[in-house]
């Protein structure tokens, strides 16, 4: 139908112009900034390292989104709050251990204990979420589970606020993780190193799990085709619960890693990281695990480096205030130009 093709072409043209303009402006801004040479290479390096650390956290959360989407084709809007609950649990566990002096006595053991508690609680929250809010609505029209997810997100946030208060809670630091190290030419904080390593370890564990274990294979089967998998004797319900559980575990780990970096917990802390992690998942290709990891890292770096790189060249005042705008613009651009993401499979979004 020629009319429709013409229409779509008009829209396409507009979108390409819009997206192209943003990219061109960004490139030019970067050029201006770099030629200005105000910010030193070591400063850029610090930012990139910070971006990698933050990005690792985003990657862990993104994995939760991507796993669930791969199976249920829905965005678990409340995943950011699963992350937040993990962080709070870690906070209380760490405070308790701190009070009994364990953090000073055996910091590594303390850290592992806190990590485990956080991951467990997040897993429980995720599984609870699935059971109460999502399972009853599996066959429902698209809008319904999405709205439920939003509602669940609100309940989790404000329950945390009601239970724990609305203030920001400072985290007791782990002395073990102070200081910086030099890895060749790169200066990196020990904390950042720990975060990156832990995240990588977990991602490898996940990769191994998905690709080498029976449950992992079952998960892949279900994400390919739910009905066929059921016919093959796979208990789809149980696989779905497992998926949520794994997502929860990873988010819990992300929770403690994030608070290691920033030493603060707050009931609203899951909102923005949740959205950004989702952006990362989309960027990398939703449904693709390596994509989620990659997307997370990229987004983290872009966030840290972006405002200074793209905007200072234009002399925009307070460019770092617009950090979130960059993240959202990335999302829009990816969805315009390559909706399936960098590594995603080509399918209808």
């Amino acid at each position: 139908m020629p009319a429709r093709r013409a229409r779509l072409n008009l829209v396409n043209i507009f979108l390409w112009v819009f997206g192209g303009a943003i990219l061109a402006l960004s490139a030019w801004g970067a050029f201006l900034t770099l030629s200005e040479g105000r910010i030193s290479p070591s400063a850029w390096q610090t930012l990139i390292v910070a971006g990698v650390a933050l990005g690792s956290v985003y990657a862990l959360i993104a994995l939760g989104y991507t796993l669930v989407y791969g199976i249920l084709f829905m965005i678990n809007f409340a995943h950011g709050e699963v992350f937040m609950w993990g962080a709070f649990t870690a906070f209380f566990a760490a405070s308790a251990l701190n009070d009994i002096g364990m953090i000073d006595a055996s910091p590594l053991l303390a850290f592992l204990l806190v990590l485990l508690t956080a991951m467990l609680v997040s897993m429980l929250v995720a599984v609870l979420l699935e059971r109460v809010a999502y399972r009853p609505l599996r066959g429902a029209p698209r809008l319904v589970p999405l709205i439920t997810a939003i509602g669940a997100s609100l309940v989790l946030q404000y329950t945390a606020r009601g239970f724990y208060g609305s203030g920001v809670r400072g985290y007791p630091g782990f002395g073990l993780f102070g200081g910086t190290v030099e890895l060749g030419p790169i200066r990196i904080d020990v904390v950042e190193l720990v975060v990156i390593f832990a995240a990588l370890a977990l991602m490898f564990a996940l990769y191994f799990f998905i690709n080498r274990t029976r449950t992992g294979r079952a998960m892949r089967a279900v994400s390919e085709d739910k009905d066929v998998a059921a016919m093959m004797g796979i208990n789809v319900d149980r696989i779905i619960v497992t998926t949520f559980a794994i997502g929860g575990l990873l988010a819990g780990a992300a929770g403690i890693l994030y608070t290691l970096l920033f030493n603060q917990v707050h009931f609203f802390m899951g909102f923005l990281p949740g959205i950004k992690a989702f952006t990362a998942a989309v960027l990398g290709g939703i449904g693709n695990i390596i994509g989620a990891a990659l997307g997370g890292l990229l987004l983290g770096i872009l966030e840290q480096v972006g405002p200074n790189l793209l905007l200072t060249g234009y002399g925009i005042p307070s460019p770092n205030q617009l950090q979130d705008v960059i993240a959202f613009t990335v999302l829009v651009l990816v969805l315009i130009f390559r909706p399936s993401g960098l590594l995603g499979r080509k399918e209808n979004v």
Partner: protein
Amino acid sequence: MQKYMRWSGLLVVLMLVLAACQADTGGSSDPSADESTPASSEGAGGTADCDADEFGCVEIAEGDPIIIGTELVITGANESLGLDSQYGAEVARGLRPDIAGHEVEFNHQDDGCSAEGGTAAARALVSEENIAGVIGTSCSSAGIPSAEILSAEGVMLVSPSNTAPSLTAPETHEPFYARTAHNDSIQGAAMATFVCEVLSLTTAATIDDGSPYADQLANVFAREFESQCGGTITNEEAITVGDTDFSGVLENIAADSPEFLYFPIFVAEGALITQQAKETSGLDDTVLGGADGYFTPDWLSAAGEATEGHVLSGPDLAFAGDFYEADFLPAYLEVSGTDTTISVFHAHAFDAYNMLADAIEEVAFTEGGTTYIPRTALKDAFFAIEGYEGITGTLTCDENGDCADAKISVSEVQDGEFVRIWPEE
């Protein structure tokens, strides 16, 4: 279609007419807002003053309490700011439970730290009969509409923490508004003077957090710094409340190596920036500065060792002598049930209560058992307060409502404690 047009036209006209009639009569078909009925016209002076007073009198029958409203942010993310002021007012009432022979009762409202919250709270208070005065608001964004609403009804509004300049600027000042908190221009200028003359630094950068308070403070500091000693502002950056990673901002600022970095924000982000700045190479020799937004013990514990050498401006509480430590603080902790003070404007709220009480006692008179407080006279008495010795300093109200003592002091963190270093005592 014709019918539609006709009916809609009629509708519009009807609406506008109704609204016009409504507003013309001043909108008070609400008996509770009607203040101007004289109680009794016995004797010269006395209740005749009430008739003469444009806004009438507050009437408190024998044995009834005087009602003072509070309009502070007591729920939500900023609740510690408002609750802290509320506790300050409670402490003041505890130490002075009677005004003009009547008990004092509070009517607490939530200003929501937003314009619409302030509007709703102000309306709620104004619809309360016989409200003698209001302590509030916490946030300037709530203060601006509240001042308008309360002044229209002749209710005195005294703020412990509004800092926006427009509230006391001659063109926009509402007649029944005053504040015991510092006008940002004073505090920002004080810090600029300190940095210029005492520290003798020539380059500086600022970071604010998007709140009217911080934005204004940073701005005033920057302009004063430039004009007072010809210093250079290398960067005026901003962050968003809730952000946790400030490497981008700090690297951007570090690229120009300012000698002084001023971030007059609140505890959460303030603590983080303090720590992260110490880890940013390029800011190694930079002096860090803040304002009363995080001039509290919980900032010290949140930021830990990184606070060493930090300078902060704030009201000169040394002025209060022992009273603050010995009497106010224990009472505060009793009322709040916390281990430390939870924000920074409690002392201002304390002073606000007492100033209001003084003004009330000056103009209130009793006739036939009922106490009358003429509203306009109350306002005049309040604005006439001179040299009031409160715990935030010596307060004198100017005609635009700025009552705060111009005494700002600068303290430094030495060995994990705040030590006052300027001006010399």
